[in-house]
């Protein structure tokens, strides 16, 4: 019998399309029941959406401007667009070509992007200088990302979905049926499930949509840990060496952001280094302390690092022994998964000329030499540091002794930066392990102020751990289900994306007691760091499910099948949104409680805005937007 079908939209994590087929296609068996008839009429296309984003200046991403669901017959892009249609394009590259030609055509009701193979030459959704408005130097025209298409920063007035491989095949079949039929009724049509726009009209910027409570702000938790574990009741104020990385990525399709090389390779190297350091003694005697920071929200306006510095200035980390003046040196691990022949590059600002910076560079060089790798200083022709969390620290203090360790010199070597193709095949375990070795030794040299310490010989990075981590982090659907992860926590999301997420709860809510609001990646990093940095106690640790009685202890490794242990570790979550003192902030918080289906709209606004609205204190100079809205308030 013939078939007409409609696809049903399903919930997150996979945003499904509603594929509405107003027409028949040839099937063979007789329909035997009404549910079977219904199945023949409707088919579901699985896809990941491009969502609507809002920032200070306006809208980005994709949305449906109508009040009703977008619905149109499906056709392939090579047919002429003479009537409203849902267009099927074979790949993201084809999508870019399509929108360049037909982006303004009012007959484009929606676009389905097929699961095409990657372009060998490279494919990046971001611009050629990602987040250039945060650069602490003048040359915003430097090309860090040579294959950058800027797709992420464009605005489309129709929904766009990335289809899974099976759905791509189905969609092609339906489109060819329509073509064979000459596009006469009845036709196969697609109905796009979500109305991707703010829930109130006329809210086109982040400020207005937050004020009108028609969107959700971005939010999440960074993770902070320290070696040795801090005694919270008697904090020690030693000078601090910060080792940091970022763990979120962003692509054109919100849910398909594997971010394997950029930035997860850095996180994995940092975790492997912490693991190696957890097996050595002597941190207590070192003149400096080590603080490990893993930020989230960096891909969307450096939310994590900026919020961290804001809280640091407010004195939120005094009990952690951290003040603005205690940070002496900063080492950031960027993308290190593609380093060829274990050669890395150390990037620094020209303004960072102190002896502390030299110490970092020297330690890196020596560490590399000891582990048969190489660390070179980045090309002097570079305008400064590449897009990284260190930019925030430089803005805070231009003379900060900070270095970013990357796999590239003058431009990204990652051909799939911020792309759906930045997956496991894009990283090399050897490179990550090499970076971890270098990092571990460098951190010991910096903390001990001694490049020749006997402890250095006993630093051993566990390569099988690195392999396991890469394996764990690269499977995205279902994600975070490997043995290593399951020994520390139970993943709650079906499909893992490095998307930072939205503001889930009041900042006063303790994240430790409500793990369900924290993304799987963040939770794993927290558990891993807590496990590795915890003090060994003489007596047996108490069992726990989420919180420990002793305020100095945290509950590590609580899974569905086993209880966790209370360990003395100073690992904590750092909210990338802040406690608000302003009215608007509290409205924002109320917002999340009775909002408004998350699927309906997600709103991003640059952290410049989030701070203007939520913190609203000291003016912050120098980070003006593109002139259109004047200097932003910090």
């Amino acid at each position: 019998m013939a078939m007409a079908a409609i696809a049903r939209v399903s919930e997150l994590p996979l945003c499904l399309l509603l594929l509405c087929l107003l027409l028949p296609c040839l099937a063979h068996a007789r329909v035997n029941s009404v549910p079977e008839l219904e199945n023949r009429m409707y088919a579901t296309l699985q896809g990941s959406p491009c969502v609507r984003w809002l920032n200070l200046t306006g809208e980005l991403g994709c949305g449906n401007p109508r009040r009703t669901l977008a619905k149109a017959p499906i056709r392939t892009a090579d047919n002429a667009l003479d009537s409203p249609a849902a267009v099927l394009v074979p790949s993201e590259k084809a999508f870019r070509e399509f929108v360049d030609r037909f982006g303004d055509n009012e007959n484009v009701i929606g676009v389905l992007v097929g699961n095409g193979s990657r372009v060998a030459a490279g494919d990046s959704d971001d611009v050629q200088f990602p987040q250039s408005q945060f650069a602490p130097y003048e040359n915003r025209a430097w090309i860090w990302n040579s294959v950058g298409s800027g797709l992420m920063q464009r605005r489309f007035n129709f929904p766009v979905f990335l289809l899974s491989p099976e759905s791509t095949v189905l969609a092609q079949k339906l489109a060819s049926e329509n073509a064979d039929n000459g596009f006469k009724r009845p036709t196969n049509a697609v109905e796009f499930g979500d109305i991707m726009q703010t829930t109130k009209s006329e809210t086109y910027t982040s400020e207005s949509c937050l004020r009108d409570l028609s969107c959700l702000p971005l939010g999440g938790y960074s993770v902070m840990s320290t070696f040795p574990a801090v005694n919270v009741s008697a904090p020690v104020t030693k000078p601090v060496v910060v080792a940091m990385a970022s763990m979120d990525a962003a692509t054109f399709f919100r849910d398909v952001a594997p971010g394997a090389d950029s930035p997860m390779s850095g996180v994995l190297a940092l975790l492997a280094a912490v693991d190696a350091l957890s097996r050595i003694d002597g941190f207590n005697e070192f003149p400096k302390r080590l603080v490990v920071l893993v930020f989230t929200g960096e891909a969307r306006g450096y939310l994590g690092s900026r919020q961290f510095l804001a809280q640091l200035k407010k004195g939120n980390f005094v009990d952690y022994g951290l003040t603005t003046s205690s940070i002496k040196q900063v080492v950031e691990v960027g993308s290190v998964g593609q380093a060829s022949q274990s050669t890395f590059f150390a990037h620094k600002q020209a303004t960072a000329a102190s002896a502390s910076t030299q110490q970092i560079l020297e330690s890196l060089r020596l560490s590399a030499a000891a582990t048969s790798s190489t660390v070179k200083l980045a090309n002097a022709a570079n305008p400064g540091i590449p897009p990284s969390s260190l930019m925030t620290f430089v803005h805070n203090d231009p003379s900060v002794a900070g270095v970013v360790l990357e796999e590239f010199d003058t431009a990204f070597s990652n051909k799939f930066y911020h792309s759906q193709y930045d997956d496991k095949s894009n990283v090399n375990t050897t490179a990550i392990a090499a970076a971890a070795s270098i990092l571990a030794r460098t951190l010991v040299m910096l903390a001990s102020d001694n490049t020749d310490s006997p402890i250095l010989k006993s630093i051993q990075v566990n390569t099988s751990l690195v392999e396991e981590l890469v394996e764990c982090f690269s499977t995205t659907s279902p994600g975070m289900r490997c043995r290593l992860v399951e020994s520390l926590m139970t993943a709650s999301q079906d499909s893992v994306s490095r998307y930072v997420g939205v503001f889930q709860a009041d900042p006063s809510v303790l994240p430790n007691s409500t793990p369900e609001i924290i993304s799987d990646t963040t939770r794993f990093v927290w558990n891993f760091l807590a496990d590795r940095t915890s003090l060994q106690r003489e007596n047996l640790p108490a069992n726990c499910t989420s919180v420990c009685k002793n305020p100095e202890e945290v509950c590590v490794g609580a899974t569905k099948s086993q209880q966790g242990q209370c360990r003395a570790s100073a690992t904590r979550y750092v909210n990338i949104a802040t406690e608000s003192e302003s009215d608007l902030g509290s409205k924002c918080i109320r917002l999340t409680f009775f909002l408004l289906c998350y699927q309906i709209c997600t709103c991003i606004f640059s952290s410049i805005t989030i701070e203007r609205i939520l913190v609203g204190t000291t003016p912050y100079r120098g980070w003006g937007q593109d002139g259109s809205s004047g200097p932003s308030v910090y």
Partner: protein
Amino acid sequence: MGLVSGSGYFLIALGPAVTIFASAIAPKPFLILAVIASALVWLLSLIAASIVWRAFLPGADWVFLPMVVTTVALQEVVRVLFWRYYLKLEKSLNVLATKMRKPHLNYVDRLEIALASGVGHGAAHAVFFGWSVLILASGPATYYTDTCKQMPYFLVTALNTLAFFLILTFLMVITFNAYTKDEHSQQLFVPVMHFLAALASLVNLLPNGCIVGVPLVFLCAAVTMGYCGKIVWDSVGSSSLDPGDLQRRQL
């Protein structure tokens, strides 16, 4: 769009039913009861037939032939039993009427009850065969079968439902008249027409059969309605329309 087409199909299938109900049946509460009771009886008969035949489905196409034949046969047997039960019921009603010093049921009353019973039969058929399918018509999509590319499946269902509603309603009227007047040709007409209509609907299974099948079923409906009209006109219409005259028409 879905709601529009869903309502449209509903009106096609049951518009005349609603009209007949509103004009002829609703003013007399007893007839409403008759509709409900009749619908229940006929639904049970259909359910009984379907329980038996469920074991043989899904099966080959030719299974539909014995299925349709046996189901119609069962319904015709039930129809005879229905008539016999109605006689008993009428006797009790007349006893009650005597007690209340009201007139007994006359011929016109009997025809009206026949119409109500027929509406009940048609409604049961519509619910059983059309409702669950037409529910889907209110969604955004439609459906065309391999064998019928000319009309949506829902349209065919709605038209069939309409035709069968008319057939079954007026066959019941003919039945009551046939058994009242003991006219053998009319008594034979009823099951034969029912069979013919049911078999005509099987034509839809053939490729492009719906072009022939649906008009055939409507032809049956037209014939039934014509025949019924002629019978009732001959019996009742030829006399003057003086209500007193009608009332005095004893059975």
